[in-house]
């Protein structure tokens, strides 16, 4: 009996290890490539362990390639659109949760429906509109379009969190002399912080990773965000795979770090409501 329990555990670990290797291999390969000299990148057979480690590609990412501008653009665009979506979406979610609104279900469904179609379907009309009003190739244009995609998501996710906070806190505060908005700000909002963090991380990841709009709506290196900029490295006569890998690693890191920092809130956020109060 004991053996079979042990055997089961061994089998599980073995299977999970295989799965982990399959899942993580591309990531490991990317990290390896970013650390290899160019001649080792193309070596056949591939050098898995016995290569010389170099940080030249990482230096290139920040110094000679011009990618640092793209990263800065990504930070600005993703950050600003996330903040905007949160500032607009959280009060909206609160209102949908607390008030009897005419045709509330229909409104919420309409809001959600803007997420039904793939963004690529609307990219041409938006391109034409942006060209007409002069938002083509501007950070503001990207910020607005990402906000437009993140607000519905924020409203839906935050409404769930607001529903979980008893409205009685606000009622009690109003009886104690606060206005409705003060009651929301002073009592409900602090309790929503985990939910806001979880929602904002998702919105941030969406904006950070977004590729289709970025490549259609921007063209100059000064405005480009990182995803199209990195993609732009591929396609010349020679491809500097080391630089591609290093910039990809740099690109992936912020999201990983951010998600790690707020992981507690993420878990709290995702499991909120699992327990009956």
């Amino acid at each position, binding site marked *: 009996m004991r053996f079979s329990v042990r055997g089961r555990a061994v089998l599980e670990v073995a299977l999970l290890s295989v799965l982990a290797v399959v899942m993580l291999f591309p990531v490991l390969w990317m990290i390896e490539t970013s650390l290899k000299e160019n001649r080792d990148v193309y070596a056949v057979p591939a050098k898995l362990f016995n290569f010389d480690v170099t940080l030249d590609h990482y230096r290139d990412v920040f110094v000679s390639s011009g990618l640092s501008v793209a990263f800065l653009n990504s930070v600005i665009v993703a950050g600003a659109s996330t903040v905007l979506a949160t500032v607009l979406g959280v009060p909206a979610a609160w209102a949908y949760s607390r008030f009897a609104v005419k045709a509330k279900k229909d409104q919420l469904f309409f809001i959600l429906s803007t997420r039904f179609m793939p963004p690529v379907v609307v990219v041409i009309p938006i391109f034409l509109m942006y060209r007409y009003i002069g938002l083509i190739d501007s950070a503001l244009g990207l910020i607005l379009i990402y906000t437009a995609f993140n607000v519905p998501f924020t409203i839906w996710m935050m409404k769930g969190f607001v529903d979980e906070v008893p409205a009685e806190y606000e009622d009690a505060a*109003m009886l104690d002399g606060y206005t409705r908005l003060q009651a929301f700000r002073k009592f409900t909002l602090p309790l929503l912080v985990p939910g806001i963090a979880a929602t904002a991380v998702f919105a941030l990841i969406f904006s950070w990773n977004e590729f289709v709009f970025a490549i259609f709506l921007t063209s100059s290196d000064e405005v480009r965000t990182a995803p199209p900029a990195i993609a732009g490295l591929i396609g010349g006569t020679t491809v500097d795979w080391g630089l591609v890998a290093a910039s990809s690693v740099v690109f992936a890191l912020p999201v990983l770090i951010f998600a790690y920092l707020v992981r507690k809130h993420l878990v709290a956020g995702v499991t909120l409501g699992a327990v009956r109060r």
Partner: protein
Amino acid sequence: MAGIEVTALHKRYPDGTVAVEHVDLSIRDGELFVMLGPSGCGKTTTLRAIAGLERQTTGDIRIGDTLVNDLPPAERDIAMVFQFYALYPHLRTRDNLAFPLRAEGLPKAEVRARVDEAARLMRLGPLLDRRPRQLSGGEQQRVALARALVRRPRAFLMDEPLTNLDAELRAEMRTEINHLQGELGTTMVYVTHDQVEAMSLGHRIAILNKGRVEQIGTPLEVYDRPASLFCAAFIGSPPMNLIEVEVADGKLRGQGGLGLTPPPGLPRDRGLIAGVRPEALEVTDPGAHRSVPARVVSAEWLGDEIIYVVDHGGRHDVRVRMPSTVRFAADANVGLRHTGGAPAVYDMSTEELVA
């Protein structure tokens, strides 16, 4: 302290739902007034309109002599206790109690004195330095009551304050609230869907259904003569037996020949239903004087009493409350007779009390 007058209250939400159709209430100064009804009957909306948390569509609300229709909740000089206690989670008990006073801008010494007084009244001494999540449900509700007390409001509004407590604690808190209200003599409006709570606490009870008041009366009036079939079915456990009856030779006869004492002034021209409390019926040996033949369908032993469900050939089986010393087996052939005075009689179509 003050009475509360609610006149022609109507509340319709923007999405079209009507929560309160038409409610008139006249709550006396110093009264413990209970609003009772099933969920969705409009009792909580009415209470929230009195508190100022909802704005009524039409109708007037007066607290004391003041018309409060357009006053925000804080200016109505009332305190409210909620089903989920609504203690501020980040504040200790002491600060939770002091919070409304500080919001009013009272001097520190006064705040302290009032907090201490409320804490003493609700026996909160050892809990003063704890946060809400370190308190049990009962303790949280006591803190919530104390927080309502410190403000010395003109009226207390209670929104199902005991619903979340377990049965034992609920009974204890019921006594506590009763005692407190008696001692302070403050007007209290108490909303509940629990008829036991309503009967044991209320000086008067208003039974609400579908946004209208069905009956207002003392617990005894409401129990003895429910004003409508809805009230008859709602108050009492097990509920009143509703038996279709007809008037024949000056007598009131139910289906299966069950004879009831007729009340005076019965109309003869319409279908009637008699409301008979389970304790106004008696299960007897078969063939006993004035009894009709019947059969025991089931029996619930409750310790001090037995509830028999009896089939006497009527459309519905009737429930009979008997002392636990009188025992009949299930399926036994028995007799059934009416022992009480004249029952309440209702019009079958309007469902209202006619005699």
